[in-house]
C-alpha cells in the first residue's frame, strides 16, 4: 500500500535535493551581523540596546511587543555599532541592530554541552514561558510566534500533534539534515510539546524521499513512548499546514478556521528542535540550518548559520560567483522571494538561499490559456486558478469571492504547472489583496 498523502491536487516538481547527503557545517562568524527586530508575524520587538553596548551570544536585544511578537537575541558577541533602518532582502528599510563581531562569547546561562537532556522537569506553564523567552517562532516560514500556537484556546481540545518534517520545496534540505543529525533532540522536543498540549502521542511526518531521516528517527523513536514516525508519499505542497493535517488525519480545516478547530497542532521540525534547546538547554533561537544551493552555487551545502549573517557571506562559502548569479531566492523556488540586496541577513525564517544563473532567472513569456485544466488539477485547495485570473483581469472582484480566492495558500502549483506560463499565482495574490482592501 502506498503511503498517505493529501487528496486534492498537488504536483511533482523536480526535487533538486542535491545537498541531502551534505552534513550541516558550521558557517562560522561574519564580521558584522545585521539582526532585524522583526523576524516574525506581528509587531516588531522593542529595542533594548543602543550604540556602543557590549553583547554576548544569547543576549536579549529586543523585547516582544505584545502577544503577537517575539523576542530577538544576539547571535554573536561584540559591540552594537548602530540601531537603524537598513535595506532588507526585498529592498525595504527594516529596523536592524548591527553588531560588530568580537570573539564568540556566549551567555553563561546557555548549556553548551553536547549531552542530550531527556528528562522533562518543567511544568507546561514554565515550558511556554521558556519558549517565549527564547523568541521562538514558526521556522517553517510562517514566523507565527510559537507561544501563541502552543497555548490552546479555552474550550478547544488538541488530539493530534504533527511535527512537520515534510520539506516539500525543491532544493531545500535544511529540515532533512536537521532530522538526521538532531533526531533525538527533535523527539525530546516533541515530548515537551506532548506535555504542554496534554496529549499522549506526537506524529513526526516525513516525506518518503528522506530515507536517511526516516531511518534515524525510526530507530530512536523505538526507545521513546509517545512519538511516532509517519512516512508520507512525496507530493508538493504536503508541507502546507492544512494539506498535511488532511494527509495525516483525514480532517479538513474548514475554510477560514485554524488547525486547532479540528484538534490539530502542526510544528515544523526546526521549531521543535528550537523548543528542545530553549527548554532543556536554555538556548534562545539565534541560529538555524540554511541550505545554500542552486545552479550558480559551485559547492552547495547545508550550514548552521547565526541569524543576521549576510547572504553574501554564505554565497562566498559555496563559491558562488557574483557575476554568474542572476537571481537570489530566500526560501524555496516555489514560494520563496527573490532578493534585491545581496547583503540581506539570514533570519529565523530563512530555510534556504538559492542562487540561480542568469538564464534561469527570467520568467517565461505569458501566452494564451489553452484551457488544459492543469491548474485545476494541481490546486491543493480545489480552486480554479484560470477563472480567478480572468476575473482579476476583468477587475471583477465581487465575483471573485465566490471563487474562494481567499482560501488560496499561495503554494504556486498552478503557476508552476501552467503550460501557457500564465502567472496564475500573481493573479490570485492580486485578487486576494483587492478583495481584502474592498472589505
Amino acid at each position, binding site marked *: 500500500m502506498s503511503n498517505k498523502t493529501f487528496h*486534492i491536487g498537488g*504536483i511533482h*516538481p*523536480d526535487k533538486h535535493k542535491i545537498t541531502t547527503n551534505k552534513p550541516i557545517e558550521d558557517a562560522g562568524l561574519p564580521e558584522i551581523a545585521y539582526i532585524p527586530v522583526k523576524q516574525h508575524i506581528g509587531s516588531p520587538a522593542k529595542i533594548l540596546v543602543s550604540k556602543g553596548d557590549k553583547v554576548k551570544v544569547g543576549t536579549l536585544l529586543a523585547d516582544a511587543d505584545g502577544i503577537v511578537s517575539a523576542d530577538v537575541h544576539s547571535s554573536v558577541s561584540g559591540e552594537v555599532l548602530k540601531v537603524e533602518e537598513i535595506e532588507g532582502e526585498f529592498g525595504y528599510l527594516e529596523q536592524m541592530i548591527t553588531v560588530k563581531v568580537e570573539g564568540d562569547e556566549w551567555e553563561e546561562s546557555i548549556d553548551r554541552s553536547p549531552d542530550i537532556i531527556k528528562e522533562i522537569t518543567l511544568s507546561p506553564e514554565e515550558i511556554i514561558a521558556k519558549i517565549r523567552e527564547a523568541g521562538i517562532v514558526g521556522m517553517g516560514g510562517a514566523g507565527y510566534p510559537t507561544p501563541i500556537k502552543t497555548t490552546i484556546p479555552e474550550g478547544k481540545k488538541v488530539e493530534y500533534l504533527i511535527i512537520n518534517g515534510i520539506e516539500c520545496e*525543491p532544493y531545500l534540505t535544511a529540515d532533512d539534515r536537521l532530522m538526521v543529525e538532531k533526531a533525538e533532540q527533535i523527539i525530546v522536543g516533541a515530548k515537551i510539546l506532548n506535555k504542554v498540549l496534554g496529549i499522549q502521542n506526537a506524529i513526526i511526518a516525513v516525506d518518503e524521499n528522506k530515507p536517511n531521516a526516516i531511518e534515524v528517527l525510526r530507530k530512536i523513536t523505538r526507545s521513546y513512548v509517545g512519538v511516532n514516525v509517519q512516512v508520507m508519499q512525496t507530493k508538493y505542497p504536503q508541507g502546507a499546514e*492544512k494539506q498535511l493535517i*488532511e494527509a495525516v488525519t483525514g480532517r*479538513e*480545516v*474548514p*475554510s*477560514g*478556521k485554524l488547525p486547532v478547530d479540528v484538534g490539530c497542532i502542526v510544528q515544523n521540525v526546526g521549531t521543535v528542535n528550537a523548543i528542545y534547546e530553549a527548554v532543556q538547554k536554555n538556548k534562545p533561537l539565534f541560529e538555524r540550518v540554511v541550505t545554500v544551493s542552486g545552479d550558480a552555487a559551485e559547492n552547495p551545502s547545508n550550514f548552521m548559520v547565526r541569524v543576521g549573517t549576510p547572504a553574501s557571506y554564505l554565497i562566498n562559502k559555496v563559491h558562488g560567483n557574483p557575476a554568474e548569479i*542572476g*537571481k*537570489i*531566492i530566500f526560501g524555496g*523556488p*516555489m*514560494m*520563496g*522571494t*527573490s*532578493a*534585491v540586496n*545581496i547583503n540581506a541577513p539570514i533570519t529565523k525564517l530563512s530555510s534556504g538561499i*538559492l542562487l*540561480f544563473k*542568469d538564464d534561469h*532567472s*527570467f*520568467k*517565461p513569456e505569458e*501566452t*494564451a490559456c*489553452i*484551457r*488544459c*485544466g492543469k491548474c*485545476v488539477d494541481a490546486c*491543493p*485547495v*480545489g*480552486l*480554479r486558478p*484560470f477563472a480567478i485570473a480572468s476575473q482579476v483581469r476583468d477587475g471583477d472582484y465581487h465575483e471573485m469571492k465566490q471563487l*474562494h480566492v481567499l*482560501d488560496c495558500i*499561495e503554494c*504556486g502549483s498552478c*503557476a*508552476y*504547472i*501552467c*503550460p501557457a*506560463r500564465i*502567472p496564475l*499565482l*500573481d493573479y490570485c*495574490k492580486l485578487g486576494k489583496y483587492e478583495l481584502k482592501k474592498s472589505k
Partner: protein
Amino acid sequence: MLKISTAPHMNSPQDTRSIMRDVVIALMPALVAAVLIFGLNALTVVLTAVAACVAFEYLTCRYLLKSTPTTGNLSAVVTGLLLAYNLPSNMPIWMILIGSFVAIVIGKMAFGGIGKNVFNPALVGRVFLFISFPVQMTSWPKPDFLNFLNTDVETGATTLGILKHIDAESSATKLVGGLENLPDYGQMFLGYTGGCLGEVSALALLIGFAYLLWRRVIGWHIPFYYISTVFLITGIMWLNGGNIQVEPITQILSGGLLLGAIFMATDYATTPMSRKGQIVFAIGCGILTVIIRRWSVYPEGVSFAILIMNAFVPLIDYFTIPRVFGTGRK
C-alpha cells in the same frame, strides 16, 4: 545585476509547444499505418492539410489580426493532422484546402485563436467537407497493403457502412456488399479495412494513447469513459437480442471512435476543465455516438457527437465546479 521576480521560480518542463509536439508524435504511428495501408496518397493528404492549416493560421495572424503569428506553438500542425486523419486517402487536394481553411480560419481563429475556440477545429473542417462533398467524403479506398503507388484506387464500404445497411432492404445489402465483406477483429485492430486514413489502425492509435499518457499530456479519463460508454450501451443492446450491428467490439474497433476518443474528445480547449466535467463530457459523447450510429441516416457519429458535446462544455463546466478544500464536506 540581480533579477527579481515573483514566485514560483521554476516551471514545469511542459509548455504549450511541447504538448503540441507530443500530440504530433503520438499521431505518427497512425500516419505510418495509413501509408502502409493506403499508399503515398495518404501522405499527400496529410502534408497538404498540415501545410494549409499552418499557412492559414500564419496568414490570419499576420494580415488579418496584425499580431505575432502563433504558429510556433504547433497547434495548427495538430489541427492539420487531425483533419487529414478524418479524410479518405483519395480526397482531392482543393477540397482539403477548403477544409483546412474552414478548420483554422472559421473553426479556430474567428473565435480568437488557440484556447478560445468552442468547437474542435479539425472536426469543424471535416463536417463542413462532409456536408459539402458527400460523395468524395464517403468513397473509401480499399486497403491495399504495401502498394505505395496506389494509383488505380478501388473503393468500397467501411465496416460501419456495411453494418448500417444489413438490416435494410436486401438490395441495399447487395449494393454495399454483405456480411462476408466485414473485416475480422484482427484486420480491424491492425487497420486493414476501409475508412478515413488515420482512423483505421486501432493498434497505431493505442500506441499514440500510451505515449500521451506517459508524457502526461492527457489523462485516461475521457478516452476510457467514452469508449466504455459505447461498449456498455451497445453491449446491453447486443445481449438483448440486437443483431451484428451493435456487436460491441466491432463498434469500438470500427469508424473514428478510437481516433475521436483519444485525440479529439481530449482537445483541451473544447472539453471541460475539471475531471468530473470531463467524465460527464465523455459519457455524453459515448451516448450520442451510439444514437447516431444506430438510428441516424449516417453510419458514423463520432464527429457529430463530439461537436454536439463541445457546445455543452460551458454548461458542464458550470455544474462541475470542484469542491473547495474545507467547504461542503459532510
